[in-house]
């Protein structure tokens, strides 16, 4: 599924939000690819993702180690990492091109910037999954400020109540934006949630006397 798609927020905020997905294809090139994907995780880890994880074991944000994530790879292994800048993503792509593994690489983020990076490396991207936004009974959705947090977990594991609770605690001075950003992200088991992006989104709730 497209759980890194449909993230909401301002263009400025989303310019700090890139997700790398390296995915072996079942029945095509997945056989024997576990070690390749382990190498990929080692290489991209050096670039400094702000979150990573796997459905099988959980995320670094909730205390899982890279070794546990690698050990938990299934027969159809996948690497997912979130980066907070286009420059880091550019470096990751450079390294992956150097490795030349023949495994599919997909990047979620601002389209024009990703296309620009592709052009710099002389890559012709294959296809794109576009987000055509939300349809239907939109009046029942939480407010946009809440949706911006919720949509960082495409599986819908970050509840509206948890976001509201974290915001209230920041407002009351009981959590710092940094603490709230970590707490809010813990239910996202794939590691797609971007804590670095969440911090400035929470800073506006800090009571004036704390600034």
């Amino acid at each position: 599924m497209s759980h890194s798609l449909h993230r909401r927020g301002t263009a400025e905020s989303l310019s700090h939000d890139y997700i790398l997905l390296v995915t072996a294809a079942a029945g095509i090139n997945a056989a024997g690819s576990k070690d390749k994907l382990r190498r990929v995780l080692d290489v991209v880890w050096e670039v400094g993702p702000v979150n990573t994880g796997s459905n099988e074991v959980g995320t670094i944000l909730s205390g899982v180690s890279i070794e546990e994530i690698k050990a938990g790879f299934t027969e159809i292994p996948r690497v997912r990492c979130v980066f907070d800048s286009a420059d880091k993503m550019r470096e990751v792509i450079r390294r992956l091109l150097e490795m030349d593994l023949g495994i599919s690489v997909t990047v979620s983020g601002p389209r024009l910037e990703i296309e620009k990076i592709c052009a710099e490396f002389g890559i012709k991207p294959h296809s794109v999954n576009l987000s055509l936004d939300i349809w239907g009974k939109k009046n029942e959705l939480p407010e946009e400020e809440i949706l911006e947090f919720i949509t960082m977990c495409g599986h819908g594991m970050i509840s509206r109540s948890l976001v509201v609770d974290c915001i209230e605690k920041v407002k009351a001075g009981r959590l710092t934006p940094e603490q709230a950003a970590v707490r809010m992200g813990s239910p996202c088991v794939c590691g797609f949630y971007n804590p670095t992006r969440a911090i400035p989104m929470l800073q506006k709730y800090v009571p004036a006397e704390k600034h």
Partner: protein
Amino acid sequence: MVVDQEKCIGCGICTVYCPADAIRLVTVDGKRKAEIDQDACLECGTCIRSRVVKCPRGAIYELPKEERSMGRQMRRFFSDPSTAHPRTGVPGRGTEEVKTNDVTGRVCRGELGLCLEMGRPALGTSVREIEKATMHLARCGIVLEDCNPLTDLIEDITTGKFREEYLDERFVSAIIEFRIPFERGEEILNVIRDIAAEIDTVFSLDMITCYDEDGTLPGLELCRSLGISVRDNCKVNLGVGRPYKIERQD
């Protein structure tokens, strides 16, 4: 999920984590206890993840498989991202869509891939709402992606009708996936507008489109011409997988 009320001390830590607002604190014999509303619980698994909800008593648990109905097991498949459905073999609620499209050729040039992610974001969906969409699409002769967990719940693929026993089940989200020739794009997007007006929930809409040789995206141009908003952030398959496939030969 259920709460072992013998163990629960009513601390309330768990309540805010539930995406379905299914966990409430109630008073039992004068003591505060957590209780899970079984109709509301979507079996997403969040409350039993010890790294997430740090229940001091480990009081939340899942009934053994033989005590769970098929419907509850389906809730789990569609709601808990850590479960892999036997049909797809991958965790999550659909196929690998664009993520491996450069080698699977699931959507090639001259085609569009469309996904209605029912219930996403935040509201969830019943199977009844999903059925409204699949029946609309079936009337247009749309063939749904077979490699999707929904296939097992459908009674008749030609009508889009689901099996009666699942209609009232609810999931965090479920993905209706299909591929069409590019020429049918405008017609089907108009059908999707009708679906949006009829359903009692929301869906997030995805469109997969291949880059043409000159780097243009026909799907993007189509959306623009129909006044459909396309968000700036998307998911790009870089095309480095092998063996490479972008033209449909079969």
